């Protein structure tokens, strides 16, 4: 299911997809499902080693921009039957998302967001602090000002989803090369002609950049400047206990989020306003800090006091690939034929991937315009046509 690198890469391919995270694998699978042959996925390390394997696995539809809501909504529908489609459990569980705030001034935008979500048929609702206790009984609601809740939101296990896509893609003939790194992209006269990897060269007319936080440096190889910046985010997992927490709880005032995985662990993180935002990918730093563990522990025990006696087992860090409007960049760029990308997910690329991949694959194979993909093209920044999503957390 997870192939080992053996032998050289093929000399030619119809498309080379860079990145063995959820986006690269989902796109490879979707392209293959639509009949494309000779597809190659390159992954520098192991599958899921980028942001995907480090993420919280949260899937929510409670956003403040219509594109994000629609993509997430379609993705939730996709996650509902993804396990069956891929032939591997995704551990998708719709325990809901409870988004709370301690900040009076956010109530208005939360109410507005609920209205927009409802108009898209997302069944979210606004809650008074006390009502949160029906959803998470031991929550300390004393400082809360309000909350929104959507039962249809949930979580899945990122590695399982990655393996599922890898397995289904492999079954359709996609060749996945782990521990294989893209070193250089060849292009000539405004079109992609091939790639150089550390295991050989591949001639290809189509390159799809799904390199997550590395996507900016990859784009730079072909002269495309992305406005993305990379942010470090830490996350942790606790010991495992019997089920006690149904939803993902997330605070839009201090940036903590936590849920209970199917294994019984609390998985959670918290944003850090003082975190240096590395601008150059060469400064990727995924080491752990005690500072995170302490800040997370304080916020968690404040919101949910039973956690005082539970234990943190393991902490790690990953990178968000953040765009100026917190929405992904999908599709190609004018003047460079054979270059496509799916990146800039700004900390929510796990939940958006299934639908973004499906739409992008359709766009690539049929050439038909796609309202959502086209509104999320790189060109929007030059046009100044941007509206930021306000609910980015972590």
């Amino acid at each position: 299911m997870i192939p080992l690198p053996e032998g050289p890469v093929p000399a030619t391919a119809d498309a080379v997809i860079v990145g063995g995270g959820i986006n690269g694998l989902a796109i490879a699978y979707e392209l293959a499902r639509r009949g494309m042959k000779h597809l190659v996925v390159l992954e520098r390390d192991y599958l899921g080693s980028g942001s995907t394997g480090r993420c919280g696995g949260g899937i929510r539809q409670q956003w403040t921009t219509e594109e994000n809501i629609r993509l997430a909504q379609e993705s939730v529908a996709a996650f509902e039957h993804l396990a069956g489609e891929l032939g591997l459990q995704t551990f998708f569980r719709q325990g809901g998302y409870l988004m709370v705030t301690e900040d009076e001034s956010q109530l208005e935008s939360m109410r507005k967001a609920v209205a927009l979500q409802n108009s898209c048929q997302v069944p979210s609702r606004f809650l008074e602090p006390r009502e949160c206790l029906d959803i998470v009984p031991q929550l300390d609601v004393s400082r809360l000002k309000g909350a929104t809740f959507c039962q249809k939101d949930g979580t899945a296990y990122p590695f399982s989803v990655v393996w599922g896509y890898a397995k289904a893609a492999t079954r359709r003939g996609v060749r996945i090369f782990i521990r294989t790194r893209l070193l250089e992209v060849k292009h000539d006269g405004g079109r992609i002609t091939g790639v150089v990897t550390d295991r050989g060269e591949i001639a290809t007319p189509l390159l799809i950049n799904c390199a997550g936080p590395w996507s900016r440096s990859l784009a730079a190889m072909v002269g495309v400047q992305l406005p993305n910046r990379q942010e470090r985010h830490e996350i942790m997992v606790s010991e495992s206990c019997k089920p006690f927490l149904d939803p993902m709880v997330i605070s839009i005032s201090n940036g903590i989020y936590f849920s209970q995985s199917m294994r019984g662990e609390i998985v959670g993180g918290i944003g850090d306003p003082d975190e240096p935002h590395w601008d150059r990918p060469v400064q990727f730093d995924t080491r752990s800090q005690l500072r995170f563990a302490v800040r997370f522990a304080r916020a968690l025990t404040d919101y949910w006091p039973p956690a005082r006696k539970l234990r943190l087992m393991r902490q790690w860090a990953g990178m968000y690939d953040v765009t100026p409007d917190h929405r992904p960049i999908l599709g190609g760029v004018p003047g460079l034929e054979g270059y496509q990308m799916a990146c800039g997910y700004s900390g929510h690329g796990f939940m958006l991937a299934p639908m973004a991949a499906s739409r992008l694959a359709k766009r690539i194979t049929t050439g038909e315009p796609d309202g959502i993909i086209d509104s999320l093209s790189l060109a929007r920044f030059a046009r100044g046509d941007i509206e930021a999503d306000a609910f980015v957390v972590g």
Partner: protein
Amino acid sequence: MADPAVTILFEGQPLACRPGQSVAAALWDHGVKVLSHSPKYGRPRGASCARGHCMGCLMRIDGVPNVRACNAPVREGQRVERQDAGAVYGRPMQAALANTGHLLPVGFYYKWFTKPTAVAKLFMRAIRPVAGIGRLPDEAAWRGAPPPPRSRDLGRWDTVVVGGGAAGLAAVLAGEGRTLLIDDSRLGGGQRREALDLAAAGEGDPLAGLHRLRRLRAVLHERDALVAAAPHVTRAAATTVVGCYQPDMLLVRDATGLAVARADRIVWAAGALDQLGLFDDHDLPGVMGPRALYRLAGRDGIDLRGRSAVVWGHGPDQWLSAALLHARGAQVVLALDPTAAPDDDALATAGRLGWRLLHGVRPAAALGRAGSLAALRFDDGQGGARREAACELAVMCGRGKPVYDGAYQLGADLVLDPLRGGYVPRGAVAGRWDGDTPAGLRLTIAGESAGATLADLLQEVTP
């Protein structure tokens, strides 16, 4: 038991215990060896490492789940309960899994019931309660005001040495500048010090013919005294390093809580872990390694009188374990593995003290009765010559496994080397590695943590 001053409540039943003992040791003294059951197959488990490194002893103590009974001191009125991992579907399901598990595809929960969607949803609902160990803490355990934040900064040091055994003490004495010595034992001299002292005091002078152990004891005492007298050294006893953060920070825990120390130079001399070997049912309660025995028989003083114990393996830890068990009144069977090469004096000691000897054997299986160890089965490594030795304690003295986690977290480059027991620093020479980490810390990895054996270290100290 001379002074049973503390009474705990084990599943509602009052048990008298000696103050200072761990809960796991107190239960052992009352004949309770099965402290938990494993999550998937419901296998009986007990204290195995006795130092907070495994999960055999996870219990619910005073309403808090997953407390390590081997590290929890007994307290008056303490409520101690076993928590059954599979309690939701109960033991029958675990038993069924245990007997048919080999027929199921591995990771069957990944592969089955993925469709149709409604079935997948039901499956998620059905398996969710199966996962997880322990229920949430009792409300009484967490309700109330949280402890206020306290600053516990142990400050910045020229050198911090982690581990106060032979290698750590040598590093302290060879070093200079303000030095902090961190060790999780109560006494200076590392985890063998107390065992050596107890063995030396045993009836019939068990160490008399065991020259290398006597020499080790003398060296540990001597170095410990020198360190105690050294003005540049501060010791943190009964203190454990519980996390390392780059570039130079150690998170430690003692009886009063967490604290942080930083250093320009860190010496990682945290020794090795027991490695029991992979034989059938080696996870039965009663099977342990020498370091676990040192804790249980030393700090915890469990009652070993008249108990039968097999000590398998080779090298100094085997002989120290046997001597310690003898000193504590146990019946010793010394099972030498095919590589063991004891000298004549050691063999004479075994004879003099009445230890039964088995030669050239390898463990093949642990055999249980009522959930804990009843005998160890050996063969000659070629599948022939089976023998069994009845015992309720088996101490497996194979190659120790270097403690690598802290060194790794500080930035050491490690490589798996089975000949040196596990992960060791790449390029370590003669049980030592010195260098700068990528984050700019001066790091030394020494002693068993760098792949030396106790025998190597003894060679170093024996003229």
